[in-house]
């Protein structure tokens, strides 16, 4: 080989070496220096984070009847980058989705990879569209699983169950209170797709399974709820009140067996995204049983009598002079509905004497009386598992006027919720034990495993069993022929209870003439109560001089009590005559 040939060979070798060195350098640059950047770009192009939705838990009654369930629906999503003919896709999708074809076409004629076309599409419609897309080989349309919340019982127990907003968050009732349990946790999965958009299962990345929401079982019994709702509807038809509330409770455990309000709503139709709708239906959506405070009226006399008897200031037979119907105290007259002379403590409750109650409270003293009011749970939240409960209003003695000691004992100058009233009555029915009202029985997972149970909670002992017995005896008299609520009697059962007729407070001050909140709160069988029931009607439309707790709420209680006793299979007491009670005297309150 000549020298020039050697030089040429060397030059070629060097050139090749330089060339490959350049390639190598570029390779190193791409593979090492730029790795993260290009890997991220590739990931963005091919890797998706796929959300695996958790199913929301069910809400059930005590007998496992479903009150809130999920109806599967689909969300139609488009990936415009995969679409070859947006016009064709728009033509196929527009009619079944009920969308304008031109709008759809403009949406699809982009490069966006995630376009939500329509939510809440029924399964049948989605299947129909899928078939059409397959026939015409249109790519880029997917159907994401979603669920619509349904309430099979419609308006029944609507305030207890509540409803959800468009973001699938509970807004009211149990849906809101137990949202954390009901919602569950979404899962996710990283997936890779090929050019056609098909998933490459072999290249799946990190994956977390979803945790479905837990099921919430309530203490509500829908059979009892049905009884209550039916009777409440009948009462509303008869008396056309502005509001009406019925609560049924088991005194020994504090379980709420039924709870119904009027006006009400159908949770299937609530439109939480419409401010106008929410404004128009504000009154319907409100759970008055826990969010409305009102003067309780004479039902509050049970607290007064309980305090006086428990402190042994008086006995049931102690005689109190009731000033013949007009008691001048603090420069103002306090009147009874009928003039009474001497009345026993028991008769003060039976006849619902305002003056008698005032004198009992005066004997007790403001501090002790206030202590009993608070001990019965007034002025604080009961602790029920429902959102928005208010504590009511019970002013402390240093804020009382001179007249307060005569007005509070008969249920004026204090504001209580209907739930507080029934909880207090339950304490008497339960031998003096004040129980926390409970609406949630247990929380379970989908396989039946128990996540949480809610045993009965005793808040405190308010009065002795002896006092509770004495009060029960007096409250039985209220439902007797000489009491204020003979219409509340439940045939075949010893019934105890107390009426209440409270004048409605005028927002401008004072009371609204001729407008009352009437109530009856009672329990049966009186000596071994199976349930306590509160019936309350706000501004019932009755004939003149008939708007009283005993004449309006009492009969509603009686009808509910009779049906509930039958459902609970309570044995009628043989010594209670079944014949109609002869009304010898009509007392009112």
């Amino acid at each position: 080989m000549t020298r020039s040939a050697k030089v040429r060979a060397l030059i070629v070798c060097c050139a090749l070496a330089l060339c490959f060195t350049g390639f190598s350098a570029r390779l190193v640059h791409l593979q090492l220096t730029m790795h993260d950047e290009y890997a991220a770009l590739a990931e963005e192009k091919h890797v998706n984070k796929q959300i695996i939705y958790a199913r929301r838990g069910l809400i059930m009654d005590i007998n496992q009847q479903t009150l809130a369930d999920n109806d599967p629906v689909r969300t139609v999503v488009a990936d415009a980058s995969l679409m070859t003919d947006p016009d064709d896709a728009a033509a196929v999708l527009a009619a079944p989705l009920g969308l304008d074809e031109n709008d759809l076409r403009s949406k699809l004629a982009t490069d966006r990879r995630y376009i939500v076309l329509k939510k809440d599409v029924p399964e049948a419609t989605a299947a129909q569209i899928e078939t059409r897309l397959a026939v015409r080989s249109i790519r880029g349309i997917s159907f994401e699983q979603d669920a619509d919340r349904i309430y099979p019982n419609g308006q029944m127990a609507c305030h207890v169950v509540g409803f959800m907003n468009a973001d699938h968050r509970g807004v009211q009732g149990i849906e809101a209170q137990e949202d954390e349990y009901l919602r569950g946790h979404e899962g996710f999965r990283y997936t890779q797709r090929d050019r056609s958009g098909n998933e490459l299962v072999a290249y799946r990345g990190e994956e977390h399974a979803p945790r479905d929401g837990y099921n919430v079982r309530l203490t509500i019994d829908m059979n009892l709820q049905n009884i209550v709702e039916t009777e409440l509807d009948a009462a509303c038809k008869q008396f056309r009140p502005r509001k009406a509330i019925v609560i049924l409770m088991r005194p020994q455990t504090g379980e709420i067996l039924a709870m119904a309000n009027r006006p009400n709503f159908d949770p299937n139709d609530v439109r939480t995204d419409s401010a106008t709708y929410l404004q128009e239906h504000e009154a319907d959506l409100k759970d008055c049983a826990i969010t409305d405070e009102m003067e309780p009226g004479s039902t509050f006399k049970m607290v007064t009598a309980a305090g006086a008897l428990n402190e042994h200031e008086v006995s049931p037979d102690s005689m109190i002079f009731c000033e013949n119907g007009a008691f001048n105290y603090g420069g103002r007259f306090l009147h009874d509905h009928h003039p009474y002379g001497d009345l026993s403590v028991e008769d003060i409750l039976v006849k619902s004497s305002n003056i008698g109650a005032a004198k009992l409270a005066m004997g007790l003293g403001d501090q002790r009386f206030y202590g009993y009011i608070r001990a019965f749970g007034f002025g604080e939240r009961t602790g029920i598992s429902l959102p928005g409960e208010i504590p009511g209003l019970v002013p402390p003695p240093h804020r009382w006027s001179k007249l307060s000691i005569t007005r509070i004992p008969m249920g004026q100058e204090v504001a209580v919720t209907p739930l507080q009233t029934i909880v207090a009555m339950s304490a008497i029915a339960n031998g003096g034990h004040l129980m926390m009202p409970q609406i949630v029985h247990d929380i379970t997972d989908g396989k039946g495993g128990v996540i949480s149970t809610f045993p009965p909670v005793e808040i405190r002992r308010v009065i002795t069993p002896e006092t509770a017995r004495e009060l029960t005896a007096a409250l039985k008299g209220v439902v007797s022929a000489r009491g204020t609520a003979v219409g509340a009697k439940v045939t075949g059962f010893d019934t105890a209870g107390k009426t209440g007729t409270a004048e409605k407070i005028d927002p401008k001050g004072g009371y609204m003439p001729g407008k009352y909140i009437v109530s009856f709160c009672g329990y049966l069988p009186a000596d071994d109560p199976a349930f306590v029931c509160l019936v309350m009607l706000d501004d019932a439309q009755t004939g003149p001089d008939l708007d009283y707790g005993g004449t309006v709420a009492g009969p509603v209680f009686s009808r509910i009590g009779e049906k509930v006793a039958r459902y609970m299979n309570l044995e009628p007491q043989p010594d209670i005559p079944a014949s109609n009670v002869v009304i010898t005297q009509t007392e009112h309150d």
Partner: protein
Amino acid sequence: MNRRKHANLVPVAALVRWVVVAFFLCTAGLCYVYFKNQMQTTGNEIRSLERQLDTLITQDDTERAQIDRLSSQSYLERRLAEGFIQLTPITDARIVRVHLAGSRATAALDTADDLQPVSNRIVAQ
């Protein structure tokens, strides 16, 4: 002459060695491709089964929602009002009550028989 004869001999050992290496490399390559295809096929099967499972779960949910609707108190009440469900009220004479041991009525009646006439009758007397 002998040296030339030796120089023309085929290096069998080396050839066999290379053939074996090439065979293993080919086999490994084929296995790689085969397993890769298997993964793809299994992946597609998994995806198909997942879809089937999702469809079944969705169907189950849809049916359950429908059952809940049709067995709800409100729906049954409506059907009852329409006359679709015919119920005959039970007369008192046809009701018997099972007295639980230790109940007051049982103690009062003091009988060994578990089935007793309905208490309503006692009340009605």
